[in-house]
């Protein structure tokens, strides 16, 4: 729904006309101006003030962070000629929302003329948390433009790079805004590079991997054109991570190696550490655990050299993961505990949560389910606290697994369902598929094989939709198992063979071995 925008002057005078007419007819006025860039805001505000002063009106700028009870503030400093221009809305939340909602009629009774500067996020909150006040609005006018002058970049860069959001709605809003902005930028430049990059990351968060790849590739092209090697490296790394999520690990390794080479070439040690860690994870996925450990050790060394605690925590955690896969669970626990200590020391809640959850995984591996549960619960609390929905879903799923290990299948299903719900809420298709697969396994454990098949099939559809080859392989294996349980040998063989093709393609030793063995035993 693209709309031809009126020139900025027309929108400025629109606001001016509302305020001037309200003055003329002695009416109140509740206007919203939606903006993105502080620079545009400053320009527009200056123009409006000029318009108003020509009519003998006086504009007062109000910082909502300093006056939470805006209606009272308006009432106390109002006059016929006054127009309040309010900014910094979020600083006053949530108190200011309540005052506005409950005292909105004071604004009308005092014939207050107010213009509220709001960002998209702020306006959404006003609409939802102060709905009666919002119902009184005269109008919302948009000033979503990009400032062009060079010195105005920092705020925009910050917006362009922002990728940490807590809900699907926020992610979707951000995508919409960024895509609009992108289409408005006349030529490819640094900003469009940033926008493309963060769009790639946002789509990655939504498991829309194909779109993510498209954007990262575009970002890569621009970075190359502009000769910005560092961004080239980042884009390559992002492409690697995306392909890795699609189960195309070999391809991911290629990208990571290119990213590694670039970071070494330009002496970007942090980038080098990140690339090494990614490579370690990728080799781990391919079952080459020793190689994985080598890379993680290198990453660890760099992080210690740089004193980069975040990187160090990640490297330690990754080492823990690798040792657990080698079956050296005690060693794994040591590493996770080190990672935990670092995160707690430096207040990195995210890594703290992940470390706790990983400890849970390790203890679960050791069969110490109660201890595992304790860690998962702690991890869960942190994930909720920091709004990390993705990991919240993962820990819920793992709690389910732990219950399943204890043969408490119904309880397990309950937790898988919770994880499923979160995955759907945050649009994480991959997580959705994983949860569906787990629920299927649980039903299969209860000998409800037909029901299990239903879930596997749903999960299979998702894996194919998002191009997740590893997930596809896993689901095909599950379907093979299910039909084998039902005694439908032909169908079982068919699924195992399909799975085997994929397993070979992505070089997943687990899938390959499993399918080969099963096919052998069925056929004999």
């Amino acid at each position, binding site marked *: 729904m693209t*709309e031809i925008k009126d020139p900025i002057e*027309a929108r400025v*005078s*629109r606001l001016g*006309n*509302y305020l001037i*007419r309200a003055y*003329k*007819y*002695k*009416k*109140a006025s509740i206007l919203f101006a939606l903006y993105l860039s502080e620079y545009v805001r400053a320009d527009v505000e200056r123009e409006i003030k000029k318009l108003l002063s020509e009519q003998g009106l006086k504009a007062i700028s109000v910082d909502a962070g300093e006056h939470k009870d805006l209606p009272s503030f308006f009432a106390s400093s109002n006059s016929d000629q006054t127009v309040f221009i309010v900014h910094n809305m979020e600083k006053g939340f949530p108190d200011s929302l*309540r005052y506005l909602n*409950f005292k909105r*009629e004071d604004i*009308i*009774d005092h*014939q207050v003329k107010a213009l509220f500067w709001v960002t*998209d996020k702020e*306006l*959404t909150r006003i*609409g*939802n948390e102060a*709905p*009666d006040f*919002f*119902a*009184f*609005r*005269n*109008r*919302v006018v*948009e000033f979503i433009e990009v400032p062009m002058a060079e010195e105005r970049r920092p705020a925009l860069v910050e917006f362009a790079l922002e990728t940490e959001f807590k809900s*699907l*709605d926020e992610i*979707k*809003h951000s995508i919409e805004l960024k895509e609009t902005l992108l289409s408005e930028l006349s030529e490819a430049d640094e900003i469009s590079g940033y926008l493309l990059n963060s769009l790639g990351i946002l789509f990655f968060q939504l498991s829309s991997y194909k779109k993510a790849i498209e954007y990262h590739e575009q970002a890569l092209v621009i970075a190359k054109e502009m000769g910005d090697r560092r961004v080239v490296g980042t884009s390559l790394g992002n492409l690697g991570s995306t392909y890795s999520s699609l189960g195309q690990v070999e391809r991911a390794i290629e990208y990571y190696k290119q990213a590694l080479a670039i970071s070494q070439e330009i002496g970007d040690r942090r980038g080098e550490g990140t690339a090494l860690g990614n490579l370690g994870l990728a080799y781990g996925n391919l079952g080459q655990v020793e190689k994985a450990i080598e890379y993680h050790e290198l990453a660890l060394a760099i992080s210690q050299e740089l004193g980069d605690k975040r990187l160090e925590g990640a490297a330690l955690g990754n080492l823990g993961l690798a040792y657990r896969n080698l079956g050296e669970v005690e060693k794994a626990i040591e590493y996770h505990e080190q990672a935990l200590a670092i995160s707690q020391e430096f207040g990195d809640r995210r890594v703290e949560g992940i470390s706790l959850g990983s400890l849970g995984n390790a203890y679960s591996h050791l069969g110490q389910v109660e201890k595992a549960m304790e860690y998962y619960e702690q991890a869960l609390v942190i994930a909720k606290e920091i709004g990390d929905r993705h990991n919240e879903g993962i820990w819920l799923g793992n709690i389910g697994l732990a219950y399943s290990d204890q043969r408490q299948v119904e309880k397990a299903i309950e937790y898988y369902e919770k994880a499923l719900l979160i995955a759907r*809420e945050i649009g994480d298709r991959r997580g959705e598929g994983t949860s569906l697969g787990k629920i299927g396994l649980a039903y299969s454990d209860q000998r409800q094989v037909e029901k299990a098949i239903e879930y596997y099939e749903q999960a299979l559809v998702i894996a194919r939709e998002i191009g997740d080859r590893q997930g596809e392989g896993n689901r095909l294996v599950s379907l093979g198992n299910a039909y084998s349980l039902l005694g439908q040998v032909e169908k079982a063989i068919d699924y195992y063979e399909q799975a085997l093709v994929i397993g070979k393609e992505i070089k997943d030793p687990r899938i390959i071995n499993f399918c080969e063995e099963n096919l052998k035993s069925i056929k004999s």
Partner: protein
Amino acid sequence: MPEEFIIAEDLDLAWSNFEPFYPLPANSPFHVERKGKPLNRLKRALLRQHRQSPKYFFSGHRGCGKSTELNRLAADGDINENFFIVKYSVKEVCDVNNLNYVDVLFSIGAQLYIQYIDSGNKLKPELIEQLEGWKHSIEKISEEETSIEASIDGGLRTFFVSVLARIRAEDTTRKTIREIIEPKLSDLIDKINLIIANIESNEKKKVLVLIDDLDKPRLEQAKEIFYNSQTAITQPICYIVYTVPISIFFTKELTAIKESKYFLPNVKLHFKNDRNSKDEEGYGLMERFIFHRMKADLIQPDALNLAITMGAGVFRETARIMQISADSAIENDRDQIIVEDVKRAEREIRSDFKRILKTQDYTTLKEICQDNEIHGIEKIEDLLHNLSVLEYMNDETWCDIHPTLVELIEND
């Protein structure tokens, strides 16, 4: 506020006449008579003989004219002949931000006393004496517990006003006063009923209390008042009309009192499950609403139709659409509103909705868009509040999504 009611002959004044804020005062020429006079049912019910004084629950959508209709009811000749009317807005005497049933009951007692005395009447000396005694019992405890400065003894009126002020005050003061009154609630109700009885015997009329804006508190507080304290708030022996939030109006907790519920419906513009049909009466009413505020030649007929459709039969929404349309026409140097202007308003209002709707809301809206049925009131509480879902009524209640959203939902 000083209000002039002049039918606009140009778009500039039309802009001013379509402000989306105020409920209309009782005798405004801007008022349009709804078909069947929706409050006539309530009026008739009030005028009927009752063994016990009835309590009525009154609701309607945001901006559909609740306060306007209540103002008219309070000014109605028959009602005034039969009742001593005490009308007040709860948001003016309490803190709607933090409200419980003790506040509501106390405000009833206080307003009965204050409004009766302020209109030059007197209560009988025995009652005054009793009220004084009760006042002292409350003040005594409140001084012991809060060491509030010794209150100046300004008589009963000051007492009521000062307790109301404490109810509106910050949290600790409010909490204290509630804690004093609550255990002696039967005392409070007793005093309220004595005042009512005294007024009724003096005036030879029944007492009718109209409480506006009780739909404004936070939902959970409204539920606490109307669900859990229903018995308490129906104790006073006078007639009472309570406004209630629309989203609890249709819940099962309030269905128990079905016969005393009155809903001010939105104006119906089409029929259930047929968005292309046209309810001529509804269009006629909205057309009058518009032409009471501006001259007919200020808008093209097609534009008028579209503006009415997009206003969804809600007065405030229609006013906003007309205001934006008028501004758009002025901006383009026209002296008449055309379809293009209304379409701009439609787009803007759709954008406003897009900002506040959440992902899961779209699923609900889609369901409603398809069959016009309410599937579980709890799912649509917020949607009713933000007007993305609107309720209509003829023999049965049905609902539809806001017309600006139809295009968006159907193409989703």
